[in-house]
């Protein structure tokens, strides 16, 4: 399937990132790989847009991060906060309503 542009993902990237980090704490490379794998390559963003989004979510208090040694490399690992989990639940509910509404219209 053809990859979606960054514009098409506008407004949904935060939800996707929070959801990926909610499963388990991850570093940036693992987050980008998971995004690509889980979307079967559909979400093919310029990877340089992911890190600013992670930093923005951290500054908003939805993620926290710390340096960890993984496979003999020092990496910044992101984990979701309680506030991030609440934001994720709101985002999931909003998305579900939106998707149902779109489906009802285009079906």
């Amino acid at each position, binding site marked *: 399937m053809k990859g979606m542009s*960054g*514009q098409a*993902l*506008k407004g949904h*990237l935060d939800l996707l990132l929070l959801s990926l980090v909610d499963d388990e704490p991850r*570093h*940036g*490379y693992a987050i*980008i790989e998971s995004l690509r794998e889980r979307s079967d390559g559909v979400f093919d*963003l*310029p*990877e*340089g*847009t992911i*890190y*600013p*989004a992670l*930093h*923005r979510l951290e*500054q*908003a*208090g939805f993620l926290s991060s710390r340096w960890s040694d993984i496979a003999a*490399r*020092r*990496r*910044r690992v992101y984990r979701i906060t309680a506030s991030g989990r609440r934001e994720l639940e709101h985002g999931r509910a909003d998305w579900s309503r939106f998707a149902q509404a779109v489906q009802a219209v285009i079906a």
Partner: protein
Amino acid sequence: VTVDEYIRALRRDLPRGRHARRVLVEVEDYLRDASLADGEEAAVERFGSPSEVAAAFAPTFGASATRASVACVLVAVALAFATFPLLESVLPPAPWPSGPPDYLHWKQQSVLGLFLAGTLLALAGGAALLFRRLRAARVLTSAAAVALTAMLVLDVVLSYQWHREVPGAPGPIAIALYGSAIAALVLAALGHAAHAASLSTTRKPI
């Protein structure tokens, strides 16, 4: 373009400081990992140009600059509080039985009022930062810095006139020197706030 060349180019496009160093380490980590999987050139190409990536990071640097602005103004207030008793201790007793003449009295009250306003605004700016209201934090901190600047200017004028009325009182030069550290912090706070505002109005990331 190699990873090293990319990182050098990105370093040129980012503001200086601790936040930039963290960004560079994370990006380099990612590119090294991605290079192992797809080759250096492909990894760098997919990441986006250094200028685009720096523009996407700009709002996050705005938050760092806002924190620096709030910190500067809070330290300025703390310094003023800490040094005020010192200043009071070197003032000779006032010669007026019922308070200073009007032209000094209103300036004295205004200095105290501006100091109080600056302190409250600085604390409100700190609270806004705690609640992640960055724009409010910048506005409150800038207002605090303006109030403290006005206080310092008025204090220098007051000290000049006070010195003429009360021999032995610290003169305007002494007060200007005393206030120079506070003034430097206040100016730094304004500079950081302006920098934060300029970064926050640049293109936002997806």
